[in-house]
Every structure is written in structure tokens, then in C-alpha cells.
């Protein structure tokens, strides 16, 4: 019997068929199990990955929540003040209506939410100052600006006094050595900003036909009014309500939009640069003397450069 005959007989026998069938069954079963286990592994790892991603997203959102606490109050204040200033610049009569509406919205907010009261009333000072200036027309732009700044200064001082009486502020006074070292630095920053201001606004001096010593004396009061209002009231009250970064942004936005005019875009751009320096200083030190030094020196340097190079 040859080998071929033996192989043929094995092939034809039922033993081979049964081995073949069982082999196929086993491989099929193995394949199925393999596929099932692969699917399970895939499914579980996918679920795990998505779960961990959603968990980390939720964690991030939760960690961001304190930064955006009471964000809607921030939004309302920014929206009404920006709307007022822009509409007044575009159309005066329409702007007066928006100004009155802004005042009512801010007073309504102050009445409605007790925690937003101090900030909403502080922000309402701007529409009131607009109203005072519009009600008392002056013959020169300088006199008009003085009325505007004085109304802001008086109201800001009254409100700072009222709010400080209720909630004592954190001690932010520097020591003698601190002032001796930091004040010259602030003066240098102010000088640099004054030069930038001169380069940007030398062709747009707003107070023509007014004596320079008078302007120089008044800009110091202007700087005081700006600091007491924007840093001492808006940013300080804002940081009680929101995250300090958000309060700084609010103060910056109001400051920039208060300098908006009907033609010139350079003034708000320079106000943005100056505002960033001022809000950052107040954010770091919470000290009005430092921000006042920067602001006053910037304005004086600008007036000085104008006197030296343009008017001489």
C-alpha cells in the first residue's frame, strides 16, 4: 500500500471530516470570542477616555467659575456705558435718551441686587456727569472738560466716603522706604507714557486758547478725579464683586470709552495704553497714590512737551 493510497483513505474517512468540522468550529468560536473581547476592550477604553475628557472639562469649567462669577452684572454695566458713550458720539439727541436709559438701568440694578449696589451706583456716576455737562454748556472745550471732571470728582469722593465707611478697605499704605523707591519709578513710567501721548496726540491738543499754567494745574485735578473714580471706585468695588482681573477689565473699558470723541480714534487708543498701565498698577498694589502719580506725570509730561515743542 503506497502512501498516496493511505492519505486518500484518510481523506475519505469520516474521522478526517469530524476533525475538520471540530477544527472549524473551534476556530470560529475563537474568532468570535476574539472579536467580542476586542469590542469590549475598545468600548471600555473609549468610554474611559470620553469619561476622563468630560470629567476634566467639567473640572476646568468649575475652576473657571470663580473668574466669571456675576459676569452678567459686568456685562450689563459695560453694555450700558459703552452704548451711552458711542451713541452720544454719533448722535447727540439719541445719546441723551440712551444716557437717561443707562442711568435708570444702573439704578434699577442697584435697587434689585444688593450685592451689585455699590458698583452699579458707582457706574451710574458717568451718565450723571454727562447729564450735568450737557445741562451746563460752557463757552470753551476746556471749561466743558472742567465741569465734566469736577462732577465726576465730587460724586466719586462722596461715594468713596460712603462705601469706605460701610466696608473698611484693606491697608495698602506703603512704608517711607516703599514710597521713596516706588514713586520715582512711577514718575518714570508716567514720563514714558507722556512721551508716547505726545507722539500720538501732538496734533490734537484739545485746550487751545487756554493759558498753559492753568491747564497744567487742572490736569493734576483731572488725574485725581480719574484715579478716584476708575481705580478707587470702579476697580475697587468691582474686585469685591468679581474676580480682580474682571474688575480691572471693567475699569479699563469704562476708562477707554469715557475718552471717546466724535472724530479722533487716537485718544481712546492712547487711553487704552495708559489704562493698561494704571489698572495693572492698581491690581498689583491697590494704592491710589501710585496710580495718581503715573496719571498726573503722564498728563504733565504731555502738556510740557506741547509747550516746549509746539507752542514755543
Amino acid at each position: 500500500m503506497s502512501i498516496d493510497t493511505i492519505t486518500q483513505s484518510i481523506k475519505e474517512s469520516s474521522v478526517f471530516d469530524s476533525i475538520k468540522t471540530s477544527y472549524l468550529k473551534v476556530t470560529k468560536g475563537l474568532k468570535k470570542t476574539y472579536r467580542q473581547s476586542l469590542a469590549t476592550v475598545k468600548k471600555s477604553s473609549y468610554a474611559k477616555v470620553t469619561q476622563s475628557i468630560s470629567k476634566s472639562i467639567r473640572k476646568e469649567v468649575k475652576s473657571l467659575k470663580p473668574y466669571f462669577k456675576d459676569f452678567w452684572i459686568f456685562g450689563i454695566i459695560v453694555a450700558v456705558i459703552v452704548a451711552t458713550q458711542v451713541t452720544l458720539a454719533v448722535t447727540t439727541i439719541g445719546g441723551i435718551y440712551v444716557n437717561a436709559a443707562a442711568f435708570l438701568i444702573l439704578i434699577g440694578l442697584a435697587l434689585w441686587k444688593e450685592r451689585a449696589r455699590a458698583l452699579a451706583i458707582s457706574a451710574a456716576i458717568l451718565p450723571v456727569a454727562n447729564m450735568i455737562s450737557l445741562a451746563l454748556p460752557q463757552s470753551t472745550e476746556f471749561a466743558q472738560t472742567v465741569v465734566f471732571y469736577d462732577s465726576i470728582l465730587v460724586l466719586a469722593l462722596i461715594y468713596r466716603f460712603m462705601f469706605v465707611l460701610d466696608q473698611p478697605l484693606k491697608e495698602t499704605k506703603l512704608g517711607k522706604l516703599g514710597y521713596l523707591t516706588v514713586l520715582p519709578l512711577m514718575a518714570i513710567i508716567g514720563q514714558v507714557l507722556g512721551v508716547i501721548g505726545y507722539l500720538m496726540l501732538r496734533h490734537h491738543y484739545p485746550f487751545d486758547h487756554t493759558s498753559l499754567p492753568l491747564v497744567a494745574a487742572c490736569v493734576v485735578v483731572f488725574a485725581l478725579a480719574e484715579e478716584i473714580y476708575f481705580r478707587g471706585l470702579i476697580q475697587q468695588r468691582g474686585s469685591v464683586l468679581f474676580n480682580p482681573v474682571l474688575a480691572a477689565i471693567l475699569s479699563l473699558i469704562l476708562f477707554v470709552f469715557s475718552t471717546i470723541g466724535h472724530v479722533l480714534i487716537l485718544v481712546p487708543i492712547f487711553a487704552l495704553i495708559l489704562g493698561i498701565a494704571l489698572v495693572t498698577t492698581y491690581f498689583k498694589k491697590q494704592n491710589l497714590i501710585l496710580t495718581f502719580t503715573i496719571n498726573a506725570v503722564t498728563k504733565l509730561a504731555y502738556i510740557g512737551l506741547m509747550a516746549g515743542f509746539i507752542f514755543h
Partner: protein
Amino acid sequence: MFLKLPVQYITTNVHNTVFILNTVILIIALIVVELVYAETPKKNRVHLKYFAPLFLVLIGLLIYAAYKQAGVAS
């Protein structure tokens, strides 16, 4: 750099609109104070003082408007 009233010219029309709106705001304020605070217990009314300076300014402007009107009339 300098804050400003973003208005080029303050005409008589602008002046009159401001005073009319000023009066409207004062009337609304009086109604709100009457409606909201008339029923509020006295100890909860302390924060009303926060609104006083703003409304005093508006009253001052109204008195000035009346004075100007009287000057024009005479």
C-alpha cells in the same frame, strides 16, 4: 487721555432734552421710592442713602433749569 463729553455742540435743543429727561427720571425715581420702600420696614431702608447724592444732583439741575427759564421769561 482726557475724559470728555462726546458731544460737539450743546445746542438749545440738546439743553431742553436733557432737562425734560432729567424731570422724567426724577418722577420715575419718586414713584419707585414710593412703591418699593413705602412698605419696607424702616431698618431695611438704610441703603436709600446711597441714592441720595445722585438724586440731589438731578434736583439741583432742575432748580438751575427753572432759574434759567425764569431769567429768559423776565
